[in-house]
C-alpha cells in the first residue's frame, strides 16, 4: 500500500467512495436517440431504428 493511501483517514476514504457515483454526472451523456427519426444515408431514406 502506498504512503499516500496509508496517510488517509478511514473517514476520507469512505467519503470518497460515497462520492464516486456522482462523478458520472461529469461524463458525456449518451445522446437520447429517437428511433423514429428519419435519416438519409447512401440515398436511402430510413428510420434510425433501421440502422441496427
Amino acid at each position: 500500500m502506498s504512503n499516500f493511501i496509508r496517510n488517509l483517514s478511514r473517514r476520507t476514504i469512505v467519503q470518497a467512495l460515497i462520492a464516486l457515483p456522482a462523478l458520472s454526472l461529469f461524463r458525456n451523456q449518451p445522446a437520447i436517440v429517437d428511433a423514429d427519426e428519419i435519416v438519409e444515408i447512401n440515398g436511402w431514406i430510413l428510420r434510425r431504428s433501421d440502422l441496427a
Partner: protein
Amino acid sequence: MIFDSYEAYKQAGFKPKVCILGSGPAGTTIARKLGAVGIPVVVLEAGSREFSDESQDFYRGKTVGDFYFDLDITRLRFMGGSSNHWAGWCRVLDKQDFDPKAWAPDTGWPISRADIEPYLGEVHDILELPDFRPDVPVSDDIRWVQLIKSPAVRFGEKYADELDASKNIAVVLNTYATELAGDGKRVTGAKLWSNGQDAGTFIADYFITCTGGLENSRLLLWSNQRSNGGVVPNAAALGRYWMEHPTFEGGNAILANYSEFEVDGSNEAFFSPTLAAMERLQIMNFGIRLIESPYPNVKKLIADLACTAPDMAEWMSSKLDQKLRCAAQLYVAWEQAPLASNQIELSKTDVDHAGVPRIELHWKKSPLERRTLLEGLRLFGTTMAQKNLGRVRIDDWISNGSDYPTNEETAGHHHMGGTRMGTDVLKSVVDANCKVHGMDNLYIGGSSVFCTSGQCNPTTTITALACRLGDHLSKVISV
C-alpha cells in the same frame, strides 16, 4: 363535311363565320361546340387523314438549352393532331395549380378550377372517362392521386363520321394558314397554303388558332412580324413562359405491402404533394409514379440496403419470400416554374417549304425545379418511412447534384405556355376567355394558354378549356 383540298372546299360554297386552325383535341372540340348551336365553322387541317413524312417535315426545328426531343417527333401534323400519339392519361389540373404561389414568380391563372368544372361532364364523354375520384391523403405531405388511363381518343378517327355528316362544320385537309394578317384590332384574313402551294387569302369573322403548344406561338410570332404587330398588339409575352413536364427515373422503393395502395390496371400508383408541403418547402407540384419492379431489381435493391440497414434488409427479404410484388421504380414528373426565358423564337436561318421560319425553342430547367425533384423524393420517402409503408432510395445523380441524364424519358411531350392566359398584357397573350389582348376576333385554343403546368397530363384540361371557349363563343357569335 370533310374536304381533301381547299379547291374542293371552295366549290362547295360554304360560308363560315369562324375559322379554326388545327383539328386536334382543342380545334375539334370547339368546332363541335359551335356546330352544335348552328354556327358555321371551317376547320383547316394542315395534314391529311394519315401521317406523312412530307407534312411532318414542317415541324422540324431546333432546341437551345437542355436536351429535348426533335421537334418533328414530339407532335403530329395530321387530322386529329397530337391526339394520334397520345397515351390517354387523364387528370384535370388541381385547384391549387390555378392559384398564385408566392415562392414562384408569374404563377396563378385569371380563372380558377371552378370555372372549368361545369365542363367536366362533357370532357368525360369526349375522352370516354369514368368519374374522377378524390385524392386520398397518405400523410400531411403526400396524397394518392388518380390518373385515369383512358382509351386514348384519336380525335380524327372518333369524330370523322360526325364531322363528315355535319352541315355546320367543314374540315379542309391539306390546308393551313402560313400567316394571319391583322390591323391591331382584328384579324383581317389568313394567307393559305394548300397541297404544297399558295392558296390565296381566307376571310372569316372569327379566327381561333388551335395548332398546338409550339405551333400557336410560331404562327403568331410570324404573323405579327409580317403585320407589324397587327395580330398580337401586346406581344411582350408571345412565345414566352413555355413549359414541359420534365420526367426522370428518381429512385426505387421497397414496399412492405404493394397492395397498401390502390394501383391501376398496369399495377402503377401515383402520388403528389399536398399544398401545405409545397408551401413549407417552397417547391412546385410533382407526380411520383410507382412502377412495379422486375424481380432481379428487387434482389439488387435489397443487397444495397443490406450495406446500410442490415436488419431492415433482412426484414424486407422475409417479406419478399411472402410477396414478390414488393418493390417499385419511382418516376418523377414535375411542374416547371414559368420563366420568360423559356421561349419559342423564329429561326433566323431556317425556313419550311412554305417559307415560314422554323422554331428555335429555348428551354432550360431551373434550380427551383431541381430542388422540387430532390425535395419531392425526400417527402415521399419520409412519408413511406414514417408510416412504415416502405423505404425509398433516391438515385445518386439526384442526391449528388449531377447533370440530368440524357438517356431517360426527359419530358412528357407536353407543350404548354407561349400564349398564356392573364390580365397583365406584359406577361400574357390572351384574356380569361382565351381572346388575344386587344383583338376583337382572335382566340386561342389548346395548352399554349396554360399559365402554369401543374403536374398532370394536359389533354383533359385542354379539352375542358376548349368546351369552355366553345360555350363562350356560342354566346358571343350570332347564328
